[in-house]
């Protein structure tokens, strides 16, 4: 498999904080790769650096060999990167269909054509029955799927999904996992996903990259990574921390 996305020695500093520290990894064409790590590990920041929301302090990102770093977010989208937001950003006053239509208009300038495409994408994410609703009226799980639909409608080469399973019930998670797996299998869509829900990570990804405090501490097949002592330590650490908080005085 050829490499589609390359993240090369990426670093980002916020004042004193090194949110992302010399992180490198790559995503092969047609693969599903997961980016995991405890809260504040720098996962969303890595996405933002890829998507051109902010410039990195060092390193660069390439898509199929082409340098993305330095491009604006809309140019990164045009290059073939579709992304969702962890804190969902629906176009609240527009209908569900129009939300996705806006994404589809990117590569399909004709309204009728774009609308047809938008409806197809909505069907794929099982939002068809909701398409005439105002987006702000959707439930959180629906809004997460709307994020995916809108990004997918731009017809990207790679889809960046930031915690789209968070807040979903197990059955809903399994359903979305299935949808994403079908998408990957049927269209060859490459996916890079940030996820806390390990059940989804294990089911979907062929490779997992683990970040902690901005540093890549492990990478490999899902089974390898969860057996990695460094990963276990990090996750136990955060589990202990939250446990202490819960039983605090």
């Amino acid at each position, binding site marked *: 498999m050829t490499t589609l996305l390359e993240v090369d020695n990426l670093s980002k500093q916020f004042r004193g904080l090194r949110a992302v520290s010399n992180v490198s990894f790559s995503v092969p064409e047609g693969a599903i790769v997961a980016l995991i790590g405890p809260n504040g590990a720098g996962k969303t920041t890595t996405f933002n650096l890829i998507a051109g929301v902010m410039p990195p302090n060092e390193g660069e990102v390439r898509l199929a060999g082409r340098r993305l770093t330095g491009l604006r977010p809309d140019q990164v989208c045009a290059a073939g990167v579709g992304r969702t937001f962890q804190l969902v*950003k629906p176009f609240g*006053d*527009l209908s569900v*269909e129009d939300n996705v239509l*806006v994404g589809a*208009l*990117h590569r399909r300038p004709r309204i009728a054509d774009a609308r047809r495409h938008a409806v197809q994408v909505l069907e794929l994410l099982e939002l068809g029955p909701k398409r005439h609703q105002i987006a702000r009226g959707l439930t959180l799980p629906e809004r997460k799927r709307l994020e995916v639909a809108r990004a997918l409608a731009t017809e990207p080469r790679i889809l960046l999904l930031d915690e789209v399973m968070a807040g979903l019930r197990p059955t809903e998670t399994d359903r979305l996992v299935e949808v994403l797996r079908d998408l990957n299998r049927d269209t060859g869509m490459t996916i890079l996903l940030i996820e806390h829900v390990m059940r989804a990570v294990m089911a979907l990804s062929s490779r997992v990259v683990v970040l902690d405090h901005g540093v890549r501490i492990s990478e490999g097949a899902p089974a390898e990574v969860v057996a990695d002592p460094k990963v276990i330590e990090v996750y136990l650490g955060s589990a202990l921390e939250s446990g202490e908080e819960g039983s605090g005085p």
Partner: protein
Amino acid sequence: MTTLFDQLTARGRVALGLFALALLAVPFFADGYLISVITLVLWFAYVGQAWNVMMGFAGQLSLGHSLYVGLGAYASAALFVHFGVGPWAGVWLGMLAATLAGAIIGTLGFRFAIRGVHFALLTIAFAEFTRIAFDHIGWLGGSGGFFLPVGDAAGANPFDLRGSPALFYYVILALTFGALALCRRLLHSRIGYFWLAIREDQEAAQAVGIDVFRAKLIAVMISAAMTSLGGVFYAFFYNNLFPEQIFSVGRSIELILAPVIGGIGTLFGPIFGAFILTPLAELVTWGVESAGLDMPGIKQIFYGLALVAIVVYRPEGVWPWVARHLRLVHQPGDQPSHRAGDRP
């Protein structure tokens, strides 16, 4: 044109048709005073529609739209007075000047990521600079005012926009309907959807590939060009221009009241708002005067109260509420082709 009013129910279409017919017939039954009041109403509806492109569609607040009115007015008036060129040619110069001014303000504001209130302040600043500059341009009368030769009120010379109140009335009526049709088209175009996306969430808009700088700049330029046409009309209707008045912040505020009260981002809001507000303001002024009271700022006070009432009771504007209650428009889910973003 077939999709021009597809949001309206049958009842809404009938109401709109009757309304349009009534407006067309006004000069046949109304006296001079009524014609002049409705002319004013339509002027505010037209300019409000133009402002709405920027604020209601693209979400960019301008509180300096008097700048574009003034540029349109002075450009066309200068051509007419100094070179004898009529307003139908003058509008092009007016539109050019206003579009250029809009492009400069937009470039400055959007390039340096000046957003929201700060952007609004920038628009005010430009209108103010221009007012002060025009105070000192002797060729255009400076602060003493610039005057157009008053035409023959009885005749009609449409080519120089000199003539009877009915002529002016039909010109502004055509502008109002033209602006409505144009805005409707824009809203259903690719750029229109991009504007709505930017209005709703700029970051998300950018993430789906929208060049937000370009899209916002286009909104400002179209809005400015449309507004300047209102300025041309103003110059030839009133025949006198004073920088103090035409570029004033007060005028900028007055311009946005109709869409704010009618419903920002809606197509009929600016028209509806103008028809509520201007006659009421006239009525209040008339009432106060006939009661023998001397209250010079009464109109402004009335506008202020109307604004407060709207912000408190109907922040989305009066039109969406009225349209819903009188069933003039389709409700979400009524009809498969309903699109929530383009509010009628």
